């Protein structure tokens, strides 16, 4: 049972990180559909760095930097050149898929040592809970820390409130004197960093090798998770765990011969997203939603 719970957590972490990053970007009004591409570049960057420098922790840094690099490309186009965000995001994913395939070609067939588990003194000795919660790797702790941090950041800090203001009504934010473009740049790059680390987690922990397109659509699921969480950070944890849980449950169901079609269980996370979307749009009319109102709209003001 322990092993299964650990598997669920491990599967959820890339989704959790990428979705958290995307949430911040969307809160500032930027819809970046290039999450899949940023995750892929994080993965290839991380593996390359570990092979080169022989230390898995450099992989995290390299993953973050690769993600930021991709996010910067996206920012230049959408924020400075005011291109369409949806098209640019899709373009970024397609571009990154090709680029990582090229960059990753020399890495094919090589393997690395995974990120080590860190046991937290005493706490890791607690039966059951200890081995699940306090015997994780660095990125797992980091992702929880990031979620807690941004929950407070968005709600209580001044910068967080400004970020939300930019995402809700960029004209007003601009007229009060906030640098809309700069804030969006930062938010998008933060999103790229998180997606990059999320992508890096795949070769660093889950399957220590590189193969083309190895994220296999997890970036798109992360995008759905943001909607599922209705732009509220802690709900991403719930969403990611549900998603990971159902994924693993359907595998366990098959191994044990449960009489439920595996295809049906594979559909569940997506059905949950659709239900969540329907519920949110219902609440939108009551005007108390956390959806950023300027999401996806380019800002034309000068600064």
């Amino acid at each position, binding site marked *: 049972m322990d092993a299964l719970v650990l598997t669920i957590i491990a599967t959820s972490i890339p989704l959790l990180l990428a979705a958290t990053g995307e949430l911040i970007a969307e809160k500032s009004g930027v819809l970046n559909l290039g999450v899949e591409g940023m995750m892929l570049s994080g993965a290839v960057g991380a593996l390359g760095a570990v092979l080169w420098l022989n230390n898995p922790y450099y992989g995290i840094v390299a993953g973050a930097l690769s993600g930021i690099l991709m996010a910067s490309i996206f920012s230049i186009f959408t924020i400075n050149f005011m291109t369409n965000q949806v098209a640019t995001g899709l373009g970024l994913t397609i571009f990154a898929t090709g680029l990582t395939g090229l960059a*990753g070609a020399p890495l094919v067939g090589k393997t690395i040592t995974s990120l080590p588990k860190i046991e937290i003194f005493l706490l890791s000795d607690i039966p059951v809970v200890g081995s699940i919660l306090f015997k994780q790797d660095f990125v797992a702790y980091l992702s929880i820390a990031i979620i807690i941090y941004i929950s407070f950041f968005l709600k209580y800090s001044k910068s967080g409130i400004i970020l939300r203001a930019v995402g809700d009504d960029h004209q007003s934010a601009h007229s009060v004197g906030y640098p809309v473009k700069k804030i969006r740049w930062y938010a998008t790059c933060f999103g790229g960093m998180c997606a990059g680390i999320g992508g890096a987690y795949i070769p660093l922990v889950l*399957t220590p*090798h590189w*193969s*083309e397109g*190895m994220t296999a659509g997890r970036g798109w699921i992360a995008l759905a998770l943001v909607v599922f969480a209705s732009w509220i950070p802690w709900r991403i944890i719930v969403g990611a765990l549900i998603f990971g849980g159902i994924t693993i449950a359907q595998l366990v169901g098959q191994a044990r011969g449960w009489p439920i079609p595996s295809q049906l269980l594979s559909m569940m996370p997506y059905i949950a997203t659709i239900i969540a979307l329907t519920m949110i749009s219902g609440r939108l009319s009551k005007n108390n939603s956390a959806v950023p109102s300027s999401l996806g709209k380019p800002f034309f003001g000068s600064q």
Partner: protein
Amino acid sequence: MIKFCMRIFSLITLSISVLFFVISSTFAGSPTKVGFVYLTTPGDHGWTYAHELGKQMVEKRFGKDVKVSVVENVPEGPDATRVIRELAKQGNEIIFTTSFGYMEPTLKVAKEFPNVKFEHITGYKRSKNVATGNIRFYEGRYIQGVVAGLMTKTNKIGYIGAYPIAEVIMGINAFAQGLKSVNKDASISVIWANTWYDPVKEADAAKVHIAEGADVLAQHTDSPAMLQIAEKNGAMGFGQSTDMSAFAPKAQLFASINNWGPYYIKKIEELRNGKWNTGDGPNHWPGNVWGGIKSDMLVISKFQNMPANVAQKAQEALDGIKTGKINIFAGPLIDNTGKEIIPAGKALDDGALWGMNYYLQGVNGKVPG
């Protein structure tokens, strides 16, 4: 004046291109133009990588006598039609389309280019200028079953399948036959990934198998993820399509390696000698080329990480298949619900293999769908 210049200019361009066309068609006799369509890139280190190695053997064998063009990352469906047509237009004389889903696109384009020869990999439909080729992957699975049956301590075998299609089910059943021949207590549980390629999902499935008590794993998906998980958790497994021992030096027992080179070379040679054909027989599986261990299209890598007596048993199974002494699907065959498939003294023929939609004894559960 400008109009006149334009006319002169276009006349010159036209005559130059005609000249080039004439020259190229006069001297085109020397290199045979060969086209390949890949589903992914050789970077998958699995299915497409094996085709790439085959292509390299072709280039090595023929040298300057062939000119090879490759298109990678071609999705199955309408895009494939476009790519195959483009290769035919460019003057390729023989085109290998290397995935099951290219079947209809290949047939469609073949009709438009009756003088171009097409070789479709793993398909079952032929036409005047479309031949098919496939490997008897299941032969390697039988040997895997033998080794798994002798190596397992928990008597639980974890199998990861891509899609519940005949080709994969045939492999599971061959594995079960090998398993049963050495160990009557062991059983196989199957997890369908519903994808050929998703390293994280394949890894998850492997973790689940191990958590459920399996200690030997087998896969019919494309990435080395399963073996890496086995390596990390002290389980064992088998490599798929290519030798994956670099990913799992302690966990890989052996790998079934797809060796497409000899088939490619044979067909290109036939074309160059004017002897290319689509084979005889009815228009169903196995097509005209369905080679296995005997014809060297399926290669079994070194037996490793196992005691000498297990390796010896594995070698015996390998030799048995090679000499034809072992018929994997010889009767009596009973499916896992107790129904008799074929009585003693008879054996399933190739056509029956492609109709498999049941599990034999030794496999848990039932085929979905």
